[in-house]
């Protein structure tokens, strides 16, 4: 599946972070972006950028809500 993911522009979305204390939840949302983006495979909450990248590269887009 890794190969297929690389053939796709990836956009990830934070859907919800349930069941944590408020401060922990705030930290989790802040850290989400930091953990997702550095590897360079995912675009975080930026659909226009994802679509532009898909247009440039000719790849489809995978949008994930989690």
């Amino acid at each position: 599946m890794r190969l297929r993911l690389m053939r796709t522009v990836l956009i990830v979305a934070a859907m919800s972070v349930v069941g944590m204390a408020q401060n922990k939840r705030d930290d989790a949302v802040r850290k989400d972006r930091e953990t997702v983006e550095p590897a360079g495979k995912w675009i975080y909450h930026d659909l226009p950028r994802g679509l532009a990248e898909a247009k440039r590269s000719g790849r489809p887009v995978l949008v994930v809500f989690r």
Partner: protein
Amino acid sequence: MQANGLDLSLFQFDFDLTFAAFFLNADKTIYGRFGTRSDQKDAMREMSMEGFDKALEGALQIHSRFPSNRKTLAGKRGPTSRYRVPELFPSLNGRFTAKLSKQQPARSCMHCHMVGAAMRKVYRSSRKPIPEDVLFPWPLPSVVGLRLDPKHMATVKEVARGSAAERAGLRSGDQLLSLSGQPLLSIADVQWVLHRTRATDRVSARVRRGTRELDIELALKPGWRSGGDISWRTTTWDLRRMATGGLVLEDLADAQRLKTKLGTRNLALLVKHVGQYGEHAVAKRAGFQKGDIIVEVPGLRGRSSETDYLARILASKMRGDSIMIGVLRRGRRLELRLRLQ
């Protein structure tokens, strides 16, 4: 992306999921969706990595044929949403903005289930019945008698006896290639077609059986959609506030029915939980207790589920109405008045 600022005309999906995905072209043509749920505790029962892998492969194949296949994909996009983004719904307006607060990102982050709840509140707040397709969104294939294999895109695992699927001639092992002309990448794509299907439509299916491909037609009877179960949905919590005053109900098991001499065909809904706070404590304040057995509800006849109760009350009684509910408590019959919200 958060639900905040979400383009609701493009991203129409089951808002009670914990994982959802879209496969898109750069021009926003939808190739398919992924993500299905049927259980409150087990969010992954209808999903697998194998199924996701196959959906990804299928999306790449659709992409390789695009745009010659554009016509078959047109139905995958829904109608323009009345509310462009979630924060424009009346019940969310002023509570959320398009961007997260830097100080309190979690509190300002709208959960997807809030969008589904807001859709229903539009009707309830204006004292209108909640339409069947809003109350029973994203029907599972089981509503038409199909159990699909989560390890595949849309392959039939079981066909229920006497169901629409059986009458149409579908069999275990059949691979659904398309429904209503739309190519299928996942169980979610099957749900999308059902979600957009009217009360008594016929749904055409292209099926691969072994080496053959067949065309099959599913005939749906009136009321097919309300055969589904919505009790697992997070958004049902708010429906309980409206229709039960915060009670969680469960059809009384046969063994308990025998003990209480209620019979197996009669209405008997066990009060499993009584809400304790605010608008979820209306039933508590009306006198309902955990362990009560509800045996009479206006308009509800015979053995019924919590989903049946919610559908009946939300279709026939409006916010502000009161109903009398018959209850058994330790063998004694009581009548309790419940004000609906």
